[in-house]
């Protein structure tokens, strides 16, 4: 076998972040190669570089042994590389055939599309790779898995020999995943090379021939799928050389801050993304939620802050039912929120820091009131945050985009913790920030815990979860599948629960038991 893709020393910098740091990747012809890593590890950036959507700052790319430089996806397609994006790009109102030929239409003299030729070509491609689909179906009538197949065929139709699949299983239900894997095996038999991004480790182990793992922009391992276990991969993905954030003695009290009873959240297609969750967080307790990204953690947080609606169940804050309260009311009743994507949900990048500090608290002192903003109070408070939370900035008038990620995050943590909250929702609070800022964030969360704050912590960094949490629950496919004590669990164990490799005999996982506060720990 020969290397069909060889990336050497790929480096890509964005302002304040190194997305890819000297990454190497070798893909053999005709194999299924998985790229694993946490979100923010640089997988997508690497694939975008390979597909010509972004250009590397340093490094060389070889396809079929020849050095190439792609300026756009067109160049990549010409070199036989095709990409299937996580979010489908199909026109609902057109047929499968029309979607497939869109942008690559065979044209008759005079400008009419030669559908006959297109159909012949499409069925030839389908036969070559063992993919079946009716070319005359309307796309809007197709299931998600079938749409994905259309996307794959679209890429093959353009002559791609190398396919990049960006988290192809993220949108699929288990049966569809099986079908996809079947298709992938057919594609491989047909001679295609497949690169796919995934972080569900059981799936990676099932389908891939080789695995490359990225962490914080670097290649940490590249191996054949031969005798590797999910726990090995989890450990490589998460790493464990970081100083672990040990929490001191327990500060958990008897006062219930947040309680969720049978909470279910459904997505736009009416699928349950969060199912029958029962949780209680006490004052002074940090409850960590472990889970592979996309297993309902984000939606659970949305349901508690109020940006997603709860389709069934009750959310109570300090004994008050807040299930149908507006986001603002919830904020005012003391829910602090550190969003998982600070640029999307946390900041107004073009606005000065002092205005950013007010966001989410603009109706409360010292930022403002029902009607008016208090500019002087807001600025003074921002100065306070800057000092207490060590936000490194020349002044509070610079725009948020001028700060580094770590300082942006410290500003957000600061504005949330200084608002005297009773509950903190922290989603990946240290994602994408450097070690120094990370330690500072941990310290602030620990201090707040000591002062009696209840915290719901979501993190992909398992050491962070184990180190900070008083209790850890694991979510898989929208359900709570395990409840563990951090003192008795290792990242390896957690990884097993997260990927479904291990299961816990929870006494009553589905039935409602409002008070599950006594952790039925099962450290194995």
């Amino acid at each position: 076998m020969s290397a069909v893709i060889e990336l050497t020393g790929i480096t890509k910098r964005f302002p304040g972040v190194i997305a890819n740091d000297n990454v190497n990747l070798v893909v053999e012809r005709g194999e299924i190669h998985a790229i694993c890593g946490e979100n923010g590890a640089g997988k997508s950036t690497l694939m975008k570089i390979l597909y010509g959507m972004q250009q590397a700052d340093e490094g060389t790319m070889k396809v079929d042994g020849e050095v190439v430089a792609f300026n756009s996806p067109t160049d990549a397609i010409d070199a036989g590389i095709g990409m299937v994006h996580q979010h489908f790009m199909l026109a609902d109102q057109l047929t499968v055939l029309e979607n497939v030929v869109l942008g690559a239409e065979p044209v008759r003299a005079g400008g009419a599309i030669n559908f006959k030729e297109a159909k012949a070509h499409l069925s030839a491609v389908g036969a070559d790779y063992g993919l079946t689909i009716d070319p005359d179906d309307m796309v809007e009538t197709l299931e998600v898995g079938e749409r994905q197949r259309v996307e794959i065929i679209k890429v093959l139709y353009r002559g791609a020999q190398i396919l990049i699949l960006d988290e192809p299983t993220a949108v699929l239900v288990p049966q569809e995943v099986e079908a996809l894997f079947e298709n992938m095996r057919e594609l491989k038999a047909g001679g295609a090379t497949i690169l796919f991004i995934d972080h569900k480790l059981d799936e990676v182990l099932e389908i891939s021939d080789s695995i490359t793992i990225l962490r914080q922009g670097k290649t940490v391992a590249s191996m054949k799928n031969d005798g590797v276990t999910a726990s090995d991969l989890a450990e490589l993905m998460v790493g464990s050389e970081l100083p672990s954030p040990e929490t001191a003695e327990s500060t958990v009290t008897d006062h219930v801050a947040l309680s969720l009873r049978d909470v279910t959240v459904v997505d736009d297609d009416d699928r349950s993304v969060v199912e029958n969750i029962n949780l209680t967080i006490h004052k002074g307790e940090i409850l960590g939620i472990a889970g592979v990204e996309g297993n309902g953690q984000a939606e659970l947080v949305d349901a508690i802050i109020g940006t997603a609606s709860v389709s069934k169940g009750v959310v109570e804050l300090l004994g008050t039912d807040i299930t149908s309260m507006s986001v603002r009311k919830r904020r005012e009743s003391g829910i602090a929120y550190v969003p998982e994507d600070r640029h999307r949900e946390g900041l107004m990048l073009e606005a000065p820091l002092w205005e950013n500090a007010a966001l989410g608290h603009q109706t409360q002192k010292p930022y403002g009131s029902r009607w008016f903003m208090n500019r002087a109070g807001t600025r003074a408070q921002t100065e306070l945050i800057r000092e207490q939370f060590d936000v490194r900035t020349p002044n509070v008038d610079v725009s948020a985009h001028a700060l580094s990620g770590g300082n942006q995050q410290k500003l957000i943590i600061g504005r949330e913790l200084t608002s005297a909250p009773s509950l903190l929702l922290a989603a990946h609070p240290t994602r994408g920030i450097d070690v120094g800022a990370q330690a500072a964030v941990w310290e602030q969360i620990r201090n707040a815990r000591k002062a009696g704050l209840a915290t719901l912590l979501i993190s992909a960094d398992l050491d962070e979860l184990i180190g900070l949490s008083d209790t850890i629950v694991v979510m898989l496919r929208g359900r709570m599948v395990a409840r563990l004590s951090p003192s008795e669990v290792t990242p390896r164990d957690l990884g097993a629960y997260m990927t479904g490799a291990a299961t816990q005999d929870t006494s009553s996982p589905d039935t409602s038991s409002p008070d599950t506060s006594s952790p039925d720990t099962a450290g194995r």
Partner: protein
Amino acid sequence: MRKILLAAAAPVGAFILTLIISSITLWAFGSNPFSAYGDMLGHAAKLETQVDILNRATPLYLSAVAAAIGFRMNLFNIGVEGQYLFAYLIAAQVGSMFALPQLLHIPLIMITAMAVGGAYAGIAGVLKVTRGVNEVISTIMLNAIAISGVIAWLQQSWQSDQDQFTSTTLGTDPIDDSGLFPDINGLLEIFTRDIAQGKQLTGLLLVAVAVGLGYHFLLTRMRFGFDLRASGLNPFAARAGGIPPKRMVVAAMFLSGAIAGLIGMVELADTAKFPPDPIKGLGFAGIAVALLGRNNPFAMVLSALLFAFLDVSAGILQNTQAATKEIVNIMQGIVLLAAVIAYGVSKRVQEREEARFTAEALAEIDPIGADS
């Protein structure tokens, strides 16, 4: 210092670019650019022309503020045109139905106009949040419904003299003098000589000033203004920050339409009725003024004055035959394009400068920790 220079670079650059392209255009049409500019400026130096410019700038500014309120939230209210004409008609009709003391009559008419404008724009807001209809589409359609439909019909049924359709009797019943906003010639004459040629400086100028100050106060001092700007800057962060997105859309559209309702009041103070051929196009011109003034309450004053100056110059150029009056429209287009380009460039430069400044400032304070 550098910051101020950078901020000034964009408008100055746009102005120079406009002068160059306009001069070439004028020259290509066979006119002498310098004599055309000379005529325009010469006339603008006269008090009477200045009154004309202010009278034109007043509704343009109101229209610009109406558009800017939407723009601040990334709402594109194209319907200012329909909103102000509709409000103008209803306010004129309501005003003609009552005989009241001035202190009640004028507010009644203005509040009616604002309510009608706001409600009409609010339809687009409600459609957006309940049915997901893009406000650009709905406001364009509402324009058509208002202008060619409802107004045309009501104009006929409220026709003051149903038997005689002559140009002098057409339009709604005239409003009593008590309902007409007085001119403010007296105010201007404190500073200068008497205004000749029977020109009247519209009293709505004071209203426009108040609206501008109110808009500034709203954006910088009021919580609603903060919510409005936050929704425009980052709708997702705004939502997570407790700002209800749907309510904001409806409220912003209503407010935008309410200010739009005031535009027609400038002409109403003069005609005392909804005339058969009311002034049109101010709604669209306001969008251009708001773009040029970057939705800033003070910059929009300058851009409204510039557009008004160019509009008024059209007549002057025609009189002196220095150039065709259409050159004015070309200049308005060029200045807008030049400004959009210059602002785009300067925004990038400013962002880069700010990042550099921040990095440098931090490096001086704390050479090691600058990166964290």
